[in-house]
């Protein structure tokens, strides 16, 4: 229902957004994810109408809205600082936009009551914004935008200003809310946990370009570029060279370290330089050598960080390469395995684990 075609934005010589094309379906909870300066907020503002696109088009349900002013787009925004009007109380803030839509007084009152109930602000109607907590302010901002039943809701870093615990709870509420109202949500964030938890699809951005646009699971398990692989979660990277492919298994030489196997149903050219990457939690540490369906490399534990739920190991492999391994402390305890610094261990993972990225 929203389509971006070759959207670009220049600030003088600097290109903030570089020919971005995107298609978002009705009812989707879509996320633009990336580090500061990647252009995600600029895109959001162009969709809302606060920035003019330098190139390209924006189409909403087929209608070209690229040049339309923000007050005529049927798109509403929840701002990062909520932007509640301090001279209006909660009710008046919420109905602010309703007044411009030619609804009868009863209809306005109905919608107001509905939305107040939906976001859980009963009893707060007469309060002023300065008397509300951060979480409450955000709910007012949400209600204010949703009461108008826009076609699209834009959220700019909605959870950044909240404490961790409140943010988690708000995340769930936001997700439920979106499903209930069925409106397309597009939100912008630099926090990959938020993105993974909330979005139906994520567009990972860097330097004004979308590097990958997929469902969270696909992005996490099959990243297409090293940036995406590293930005979401953490990742071990190993430059490698293809030795040969036998029976659907690729042999990769990690120079100076080891040769490993990766089960893939793809032929790889021998001699090709690639990047092998594997998630720290897919690796296990053991005193015993690997089984035949596993890769194993001997290494020495150089770092050990106890993090409550998990322990993060930094293990030095031959060739002075460091590998990060995440172990569940509960499982370690069950198996009576406690590894110390300086101990020699095997670093083991299944031959089906890991991804190959092209350099």
């Amino acid at each position, binding site marked *: 229902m929203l389509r971006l075609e070759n959207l670009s934005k220049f600030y003088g010589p600097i290109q903030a957004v570089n020919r971005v094309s995107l298609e978002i379906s009705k009812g989707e909870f879509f996320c633009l994810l990336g580090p500061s300066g990647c252009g995600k907020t600029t895109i959001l503002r162009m969709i*809302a*109408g*606060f920035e003019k696109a330098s190139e390209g088009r924006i189409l909403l349900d087929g209608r070209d809205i690229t040049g339309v*002013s*923000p*007050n*005529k787009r049927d*798109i*509403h*925004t929840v*701002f990062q*600082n909520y*932007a*509640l*009007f*301090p*001279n209006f109380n909660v009710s008046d803030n919420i109905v*602010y*936009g309703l007044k*411009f*839509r030619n609804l009868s007084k009863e209809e306005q009152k109905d919608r107001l009551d509905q939305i107040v109930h939906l976001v859980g602000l009963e009893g707060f109607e007469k309060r*002023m914004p*300065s008397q509300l907590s951060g979480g409450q302010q955000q709910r007012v901002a949400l209600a*204010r*935008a949703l009461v*108008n039943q826009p076609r699209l809701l834009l959220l700019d870093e909605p959870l950044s200003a909240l404490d961790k615990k409140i943010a988690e709870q708000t995340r769930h509420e936001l997700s439920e809310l979106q499903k209930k109202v069925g409106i397309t949500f597009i939100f912008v964030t630099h926090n990959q946990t938020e993105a993974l938890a909330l979005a139906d699809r994520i567009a990972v951005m860097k330097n004004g370009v979308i590097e990958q646009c997929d469902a969270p699971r696909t992005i996490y398990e099959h990243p297409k570029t090293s940036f995406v692989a590293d930005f979401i979660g953490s990742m071990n990277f190993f430059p490698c060279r293809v030795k040969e492919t036998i029976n659907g298994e690729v042999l990769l030489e990690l120079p100076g370290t080891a040769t490993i196997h990766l089960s893939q149903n793809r032929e790889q050219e021998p001699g090709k330089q690639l990047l092998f990457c594997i998630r720290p939690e897919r690796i296990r540490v053991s005193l015993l050598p690997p089984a035949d369906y596993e890769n194993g490399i001997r290494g020495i534990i150089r770092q050990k960080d106890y993090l409550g739920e998990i322990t993060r190991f930094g293990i030095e492999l031959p060739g002075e390469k460091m590998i990060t391994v995440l172990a569940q402390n509960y499982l370690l305890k069950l198996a009576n395995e406690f590894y110390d610094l300086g101990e020699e261990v095997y670093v083991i993972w299944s031959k089906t684990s890991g991804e190959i990225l092209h350099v």
Partner: protein
Amino acid sequence: MAPPAFWLLVFFLVPAIIVVGYSFCTPKSDGGMSPVFTLENYRQVFQGLYLSVLGKSFGYALLTTLFTLALAFPMAYYMAFASRRMKMLLLFLIILPFWTNFLIRMFSIMILLGDNGLINTILVSTGIVDQPVKLMNNSLGMYVGFVYWNLPFMILPIFSSLDRMDVSLLEASLDLGASRWQTFLKITLPYAVPGLVAGIIFVFIPTLGNFIIPEFLGGTQNTMIGNLITTQYLQARNGPFGSALSTVLIFVVMLFIVLYIRFFDPTKSKNNIQF
């Protein structure tokens, strides 16, 4: 007693009491006054002539306030939303004239407006007019002087109020469907109100009592209450009568302030911004 209270007492209350006291004294023909209680001074004040001058003074001050407001508001608005560098530059330019003596600034206006002044020289030499236009020693000159003098006192409070506003509030209003004009009325203006109230007081009251600008730039028709008071003290040497005029002026201004604050109190109000 705290220093501020002491200061107010010594430098405001006591002189005011002295003036009021003098207003009840009898003037002596040689210029002094004798402490004989009389209401004659006040009887004189309430004769038509002086009251009408007071009324005219109110009118001049009111119009001055309106003109100043009309010029100051757009300036303050522009400044509040300008880039940081522009803001600093404009603030500097507005404050810069304060480093110059007031009288010299008045003289500089006279150089602009006089018959042989800058404006008339340009007009006459380019042939737009045959004779110099009378820009001074009349109401026009007086208003120019007043507005020129008062502009910073109106710009700065309004700017200070508007500066507190976040641009995202304007964007939010537009985002929700309001037009630029509706946004201005509903969101921007309420923010500006405390500054407006302050600015109006800062401009209206001093203008009311001003006697230098009407003297230098105004015409014979533009006598204001300040001029009358000055005349009584300095030329007619009738201290008690001057004091009576002053007391009436003070009283009227106080009345105005009380009413104004009662209806437009900038420190409390459901209309104004809670911070």
